[in-house]
C-alpha cells in the first residue's frame, strides 16, 4: 500500500503540478456523491440509464487519475476494479444518489456535469486511488462534497469504487 501511495503522490505531482502538492495525499475517502436536497436526483436518474462505452471525443485513459472526468473525484477508480468510468464492477450496486462536479473536456473544449456515483456492496477495491478535489466543499455542502461515503440508498453501505458519469453539458456562467 505504501508503494501505491507513493505512486499516487508522484503521479499527482507530475500530472497536476499546478494543483497538487508533492506530498499531497490520500485524503480521501469515501466516496462521493452528492445528493442533497438542492441538486440531487436528476443526475442520479440519468446515471442509471447510462453505462455505455466512453465517448469517442475524449482523450486519455480512464485508469489515469488525471483523466479529465476525474477532476473532483476522491476514491478508487472503478476503471481499475472491473468496471469503467461510467459502469460499476460485476456484482456491485451503483448508488442512486450522488454528488456532482463540473469538469472540462479538453477534447471538445466543453464543460460537463459529472456524477460521481459510487459502486457499493463489496470491500474497498484498493486499486487506482485518486484524489483531485477540484470544486470539492466540506460536507455541509453535500451536493459538492466527496468527503462522505455516498453508498446511500443502496442495500449495502460498503464502499467499493467510484465512477464519473457524464450527465450533461454544463451551463455557461
Amino acid at each position, binding site marked *: *500500500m*505504501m508503494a501505491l*501511495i*507513493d505512486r499516487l*503522490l508522484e503521479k499527482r505531482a507530475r500530472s497536476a503540478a*499546478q*494543483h*497538487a*502538492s508533492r*506530498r*499531497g*495525499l*490520500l*485524503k*480521501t*475517502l*469515501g466516496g462521493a456523491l*452528492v*445528493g*442533497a*436536497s*438542492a441538486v*440531487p436526483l436528476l443526475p442520479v436518474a440519468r446515471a442509471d440509464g447510462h453505462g455505455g462505452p466512453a465517448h469517442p471525443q475524449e482523450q486519455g485513459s480512464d485508469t489515469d487519475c488525471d483523466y479529465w472526468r476525474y*477532476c*473532483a473525484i*476522491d476514491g478508487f477508480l472503478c476503471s481499475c476494479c472491473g468496471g469503467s468510468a461510467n459502469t460499476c464492477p460485476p456484482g456491485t450496486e451503483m448508488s442512486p*444518489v450522488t454528488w456532482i462536479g463540473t469538469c472540462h473536456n479538453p477534447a471538445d473544449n466543453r464543460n460537463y456535469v459529472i456524477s460521481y456515483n459510487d459502486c457499493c*456492496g*463489496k*470491500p*474497498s477495491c*484498493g486499486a487506482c486511488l485518486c*484524489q*483531485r*478535489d*477540484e*470544486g*470539492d*466543499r*466540506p*460536507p*455541509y*455542502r*453535500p451536493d*459538492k462534497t466527496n*468527503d*462522505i*461515503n455516498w453508498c*446511500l440508498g443502496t*442495500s*449495502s*453501505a*460498503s*464502499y467499493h469504487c467510484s465512477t464519473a458519469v457524464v450527465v450533461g453539458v454544463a451551463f455557461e456562467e
Partner: protein
Amino acid sequence: MLRKSLLLAVLVGICGQVAAAEPPPPLPVEPTGVIETLPDRYPAEWFLVHDAAFFHMSDGKVYVIDTSKDTVGEQVQGMFPVNLMGSYLQVPSRGEIMSVETFHTRGTRGDRFDVLTIWDNANLAVVAEVQLPGSKRFMGMPQRVALRTMNNDRWLAIFNLSPSTSVTLVDLETRSIVNEIPTPGCSFVYGNGDMTFSSVCADGRMLTVVLDENGAEQSRGFSDVFFDSDDTPIFERPAQVGDMAYFPAFDGRVQPVAMGASAAMPMASWSLIGEGEESWAPSGIGLDGEDDLGRIYFLMNPEANGVDGMHNAGGAEIWVYDPEARRRVLRIPLQEWGLSFAVGRGEEPKVLVTNPVDMSVELYDGLTGDFIRKITGFGQETPLMIMSAQ
C-alpha cells in the same frame, strides 16, 4: 604453609565456579487469562490514533498510544474498533468511549445495523450498545464534530447525513433514543451550552437549536450569513478555546464564532497569513487544534491558497496563534508533511501529526516546535485522524 594456602584458594575457586555453573531456579508457573487494564483517566501523553482503514473500511480501529515511550511495546496501550468509517468520542466524566459504527450481517452485505457502541476506558470492553434507527448516521472522513455530549454528559448527540441531515439524541443513562432533531441544510454538532447545539449551514449561516429537559426542541434560530460556501468556504472543523470556535477558511482567514450565547454568533474574521505568505492556506483532514494554554493550531500548506482542490492535501508546517492577540507565536516545520494532527493536554503540550508520506505519526513539542520522535510499526495503515486522549 604457603603451598597449603594456595591449594585451598584454588579449591575454593573451583567450587565457586561449579556452584556458578548451576542453572537458576525454573521460572514460576504463570496464570493464564490475565487481561491488562488501563487507567480511568488517560495520561496527557496518550493519544487516540484513528486508523480508518481506507483500504478495508470494515476494519477501522483506534489505537491508544503512549507517545512518551520509545518502543512499540511500550507505546501501544490497547485498541478498539470503529467499524465502517465510524465516529467516536471519549467522555472522561463517564469513563467511557462512544463509538458510532455500522455492520452488515454478512460482512459487506446483508441487513445493516447502525449502533452506538459504548466502551469503558479502563477495560476497552463493550459495556452497552444502542441500536440507531434509519441507516442515516454520518459516514465519511473521520470527524471531531459528528458527536458531542449534552445535558451534563447524559445525552449523546449524533450527527446524521443520509443525505438529509438531523441529530439523534441518545440517553447514556438509559441507553435509549431520546429524540431526533431535523437540521435541514445544516450539518454537524458544535457545543454551544449544555442544552444547546449548533450546526453549520450550506447557506453560510449557523443554526442553533435549544432543547428542553426532555430532549425536545424548545427553539431554534439562525445567525446572519457570514460566509459563502461556494466562493469563501470555511472548513467544518474548528479549533475551540472556551466558548469560541475558530473555523479556518480556505482563503487563509480564521472565522471566530462565539458559542457561549443562546445563538451562535459569528465574529470578525482575521488572517492567518502575513506579508510574503500569500500562497499559504490551511489544508488537511484533522487540520486544527487547541491547547490548555489557550493557543490555536493550524496545519498550513505553502501552495494551497487560491488553488482549487488543495484544501485536503495537508501541509508542511503547523502554525500556532494567540487568538486574543491574533498573533502567530510559533511555526512548527514538519519533518516531511502532515495530514492530520492533535494537541495533547497540559502546560507543556505535545503535538502528534500524521505523516502521509510513510503513514507514521510524529511527535513535536508544542512550546518549541522541536521534533521529538517518529512512532510507527504499530499496525497502522491509514491513520487519518488523531485525538488527544482524555
